[in-house]
């Protein structure tokens, strides 16, 4: 098995799917000839031709609108938004059009579109490149939001996303693209959407998280075990819409305490939704309120201060200490 970075795993998934299903098309700004600014589509245009993998004019609403029209005609488009901070340009086409297509047409049309986009902080991008805007789409009925945390997951989840008959926003954390390698099978495998993964077992507190915060939370849990001798269970949600409340509930029944860790600002995000669902499902198993470990409700900060702004292992350890002292 090859050791792949997340970006290589993503390319491999796109390659497999382009080969398997001729209805799959990849496009966006710089996606074709250049292979994407992060090289996610590297070599794919050469292999599949300009009809399957292509550059578009620079217009996000146009790109997602194109995907919408293609989907209505039975294609399975995989458009790329170059950086997720630009998603506002395409908000209407995603939230009011693609996500509602099945509903508006009473099921006559559907939008099997997978919108890929790099996002996430810690890589010193210019403004409006790193923002964690996934929470906006949790409030949008009709669309799924997938955020892988490892190369292995990225490949399996992306294959599921493209094969899903509903629209999916597939968010790729920029800091994870090349930060580590992992064994990724060359063959075709899928990871179901909407199913979380318990990446570290523990009996004292449940950490619920996703994306780049999975690794940071694992570090925090290891440090906490060393310092305090307590074991945190870490759940990687993999999909934040829908949320796998079953896996979360099972864990809380065991630990009785939980924190949610997210890279997005605190208010009204995935964390808030998770806390609400925990309340509705397993409140009587809780021994303490569920806490959120998040950055403050500011605009995503300038590069010089982003490391302070983003949750660190120590920041998460503090939250673990707090929730166990309540």
């Amino acid at each position, binding site marked *: 098995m090859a050791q792949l970075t997340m970006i290589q795993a993503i390319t491999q998934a796109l390659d497999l799917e382009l080969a398997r299903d001729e209805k799959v098309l990849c496009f966006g700004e710089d996606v074709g000839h250049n292979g994407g600014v992060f090289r996610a589509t590297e070599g794919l245009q050469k292999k599949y031709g300009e009809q399957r993998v292509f550059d578009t004019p620079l217009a996000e609403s146009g790109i997602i*609108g194109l995907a*919408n029209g*293609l989907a*209505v005609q039975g294609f399975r488009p995989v458009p790329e938004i170059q950086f997720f901070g630009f998603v506002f340009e395409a908000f209407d086409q995603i939230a009011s059009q693609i996500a509602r297509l099945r509903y508006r047409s*009473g*099921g*006559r049309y559907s939008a099997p579109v997978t919108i890929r986009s790099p996002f996430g902080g810690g890589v010193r991008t210019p403004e409006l490149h790193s923002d964690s805007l996934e929470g906006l789409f949790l409030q949008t009925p*009709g669309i799924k939001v997938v955020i892988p945390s490892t190369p292995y997951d990225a490949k399996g989840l992306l294959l599921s996303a493209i094969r899903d008959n*509903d629209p999916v926003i597939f968010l790729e954390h920029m800091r994870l693209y090349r930060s580590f390698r992992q064994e990724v099978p060359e063959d075709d495998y899928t990871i179901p959407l909407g199913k979380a993964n318990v990446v570290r077992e523990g009996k004292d507190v449940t950490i619920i998280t996703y994306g780049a915060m999975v690794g940071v939370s694992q570090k925090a849990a290891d440090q906490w075990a060393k310092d305090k001798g307590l074991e945190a269970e870490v759940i990687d949600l993999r999909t934040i819409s829908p*949320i796998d409340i079953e896996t979360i509930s099972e864990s809380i029944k065991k630990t009785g305490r939980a924190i949610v860790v997210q890279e997005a600002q605190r208010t009204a995000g995935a964390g808030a939704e998770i806390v609400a669902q925990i309340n509705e499902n397993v409140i009587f198993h809780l021994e303490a309120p569920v806490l959120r470990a998040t950055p403050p409700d500011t605009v995503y900060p300038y590069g010089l201060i982003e490391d302070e702004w983003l949750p660190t292992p120590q920041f998460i350890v503090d939250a673990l200490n707090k929730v166990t002292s309540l």
Partner: protein
Amino acid sequence: MSKTVAEHSVSYVQVLDENGKVTNKDLVPDLKDEQLRELMSRMVFTRILDQRAIKLTRQGRLGFYAPVAGQEASMIGSEFATTKEDFIVPGYRDLPQCVYHGYPLEKLFLYSRGHQEGGRVPEDVNVMMPQIIIGAQIVQTPGIALAFKLRGEKRVAVTYTGDGGTSQGDFYEGMNFAGAMQLPAVFFVQNNQYAISVPREKQTAAETLAQKAIAAGIRGVQVDGMDILGVYTVMHEAVERARNGEGPTMIEAVTFRYGPHTMSGDDPTRYRTKETESTWEKRDPLIRFRTYLEEKGLWSQEEEEKVIEQAKDTITEALKKADSAAKMKLTDLIDVMFEEPTIELKRQRAEITGEGAN
């Protein structure tokens, strides 16, 4: 140094003038007598449908409705130039084109009432549900057109918007995509002079709306939108060019809406005068085409009466069908959110029905 690097012009097309007289013999379309009668019947039907729909909305028997009287030539003439395989991507006012493209009338009534069945376009009908968001359909059209091109099908995607719609960024994005990719698409703008209350002059400083095509590198044509032969001629050319891989066209049809913007409380007397209205009513598409046909011996009062009676019956029939549609349930909404409801949706469904989630 300074030199001219590009020069563009926009042409205005008219075939029949206000008196039903041919102003441009070369552009008279090659249509059979039967087809000419059909065009007239469709315009008459549309006028009757509009009158009836307005009444029905007032009686609370329809929901959202945007009147079309005045725009019959633009709507009917343009759709007539397409084939059933071509795909119509309409705005909220473009119901007549949908009807003649095969969208069942009863479904459009259901759409107006906000019934989910109204959006369920039959499988073999190449129409999208009417769009509410101004401009959204215009960026979707290149996607549909690209699908045709990729599959090597000789089909065309046709989208409609109003003069206000041409101010949206999506309008330009859609045309630009179609131009850059040389797609079989037609962008049909019905310049009915007002975007709700905002007059065309306040919408843009551009002399014509058709010239907006030039920036996208596609053909732009202006046509007398109350002259059905003119509309058909420019549309036929645009559709055939698109079909033959000669690229997209944007058409500006200069027309007028006689009624309010929609039946939801708009009062046109707040933003236009009686004189303006009567000036436009003199250019009425039905009157001038009727004159033209009568002079050719192809139309009569009797014939028109017959069409009106048939129209009334058809509308009554469709209303009956719409009335008999099953009542919508909250659970129907939940069931079409995704192919398979999510865990949370299943739980919410169970809350509504009082059944346990499984």
